[in-house]
């Protein structure tokens, strides 16, 4: 049931436990308990929304930064990852296979702000050996959702056999 609930909530986290219960044909207490359990266990880490920033008035720019680091003897990548993800400016941090170590997602008001963060906060961390910054020009799809909706009308005939 966990999997089914996650699938529904991932699409729309505002659906109530009662509604999920109807959709899955399960008692709603069971669904509520399961959601609670997943929250407690950290399977569900949070509920959020998916804004299309291009449509807001606020200045906004996002960047993906490839970061190479020297892993440390005792803590490997963990300690350095923590030093990076603790910054509020940093949205996501992934440990990667391949040519670099971390992929860091950042959001800021403008390019200058992000550059400043990288040059003063990120690159200056001891274990960081190099960074390569890619600014996002446009988001087409994020977390499975297409940002610019092509609102096709329902082309189906209203009644068909």
């Amino acid at each position, binding site marked *: 049931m966990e999997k089914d609930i996650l699938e*529904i909530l991932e699409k729309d986290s505002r659906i109530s436990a009662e509604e999920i219960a109807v959709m899955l044909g399960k008692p709603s207490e069971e669904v509520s308990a399961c959601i609670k359990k997943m929250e407690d266990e950290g399977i569900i880490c949070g509920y959020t929304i998916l804004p299309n920033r291009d449509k807001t008035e606020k200045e906004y720019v996002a960047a993906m930064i490839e970061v190479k680091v020297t892993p440390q003897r005792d803590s490997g990548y963990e300690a350095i990852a923590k030093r990076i993800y603790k910054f509020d400016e940093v949205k996501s941090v992934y440990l990667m296979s391949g040519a670099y170590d971390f992929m860091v997602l950042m959001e800021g008001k403008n390019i200058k702000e992000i550059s400043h963060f990288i040059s003063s906060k990120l690159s200056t961390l001891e274990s960081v050996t190099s960074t390569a910054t890619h600014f996002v020009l446009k988001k087409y799809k994020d977390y499975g959702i297409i940002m610019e909706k092509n609102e096709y009308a329902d082309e189906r005939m209203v009644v068909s056999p």
Partner: protein
Amino acid sequence: MTFVARHIAEMPRSGIRKFFDIVNEIDGAISLGVGEPDFETPWAIKERGIYTLENKRTVYTSNAGLIELRREISKYLENRIGVKYDPGSEILVTVGASEGIDVALRAVIEPGDEVLIVEPSFVSYRPCVTMAGGVPVSVETKAENDFRLTPEDILKKLTPRTKALVLPYPNNPTGAIMEKSDLAAIEKVLKYRDIVVISDEIYSELTYGDISHTSISSFESMREKTVVLNGFSKSYAMTGWRLGYAAGPREIIDAMTKIHQYIIMCAPTVSQYAGIEALQSCDDAVMKMRREYDARRRVMRKGFLDMGLSCFDAKGAFYLFPCIKSTGLSSDEFAEKLLYEEKVAVVPGTAFGECGEGFIRCSYAYSIKEIKAALERIERFVRKLKNTDKP
């Protein structure tokens, strides 16, 4: 003087068509009336179609269809229903399962042959039997059996002239399915009789709960007298691509291919290539759609039960068939009044056979949001009816 042949002139127009004309007059109606998925064809399939066009594969294929596609169909059938069909001689690719219905009937019917048609069911069977010179015989299924076919239903209608049985499960419009044990009972009746079964399994991918589809052809005694019809429309959301297929014993498929070659030549080439992609890589997409339908099915059924309409737990296709007898209206009256008063389009059960009286077909090929909006209006409508009934 009319030039139209009498048997065509006398053929009634589809009840759905009549209703369609009414619905079209109403502005801003919400519909629960469609018989096709609301999902888009999975992108991998569309992409293959585009690629096919770009590569100038816009010519005829062999009459029976691309052999690569027939091989994939053969694999699929073995996988899903556990029956082996030779791609070279026992599979025909058709223009939707609709063509399959027509061609299968024409291949087996001689003038005056009786064809049993399980009802309520899809609107084409009867006219196709008539056009093939046969005599359609209704086999009515009942709400108390959850619209499953029982041996008694058939036995009452058998005559020495019975040539074929149209078996449409999972069923449009009722959403009923036939489980293995139900089919076993039917097999007993048919085992020693020379009756061809035309098994329309177009909704085979859409069964819910833990029940997966069983085909009557999976019974050893039935394989040689069953034509399985299926297609890509419902399972892969490909209605407009017009792609289906028939699988059956060599002799019948051969006869069907003969008819098909004269009337159709071949199914659309682009669609055939797209169909290969569908069978090769889209199981996950189908599963996703199935799960989504299942959730909607539950939401819709609860809606009907909450408003006091009985509605059996239909485990197939994407229709519910709630009973509206408690409102005191006939199916036609209910559907028409609902449309005029609350602007919701549903299809009267009678469009699918007389025994659909007292029921309406509601499709859940809509988003949950749309379904809820429609349910709200239906609920208001039913409440009004019940209140005015009181003395």
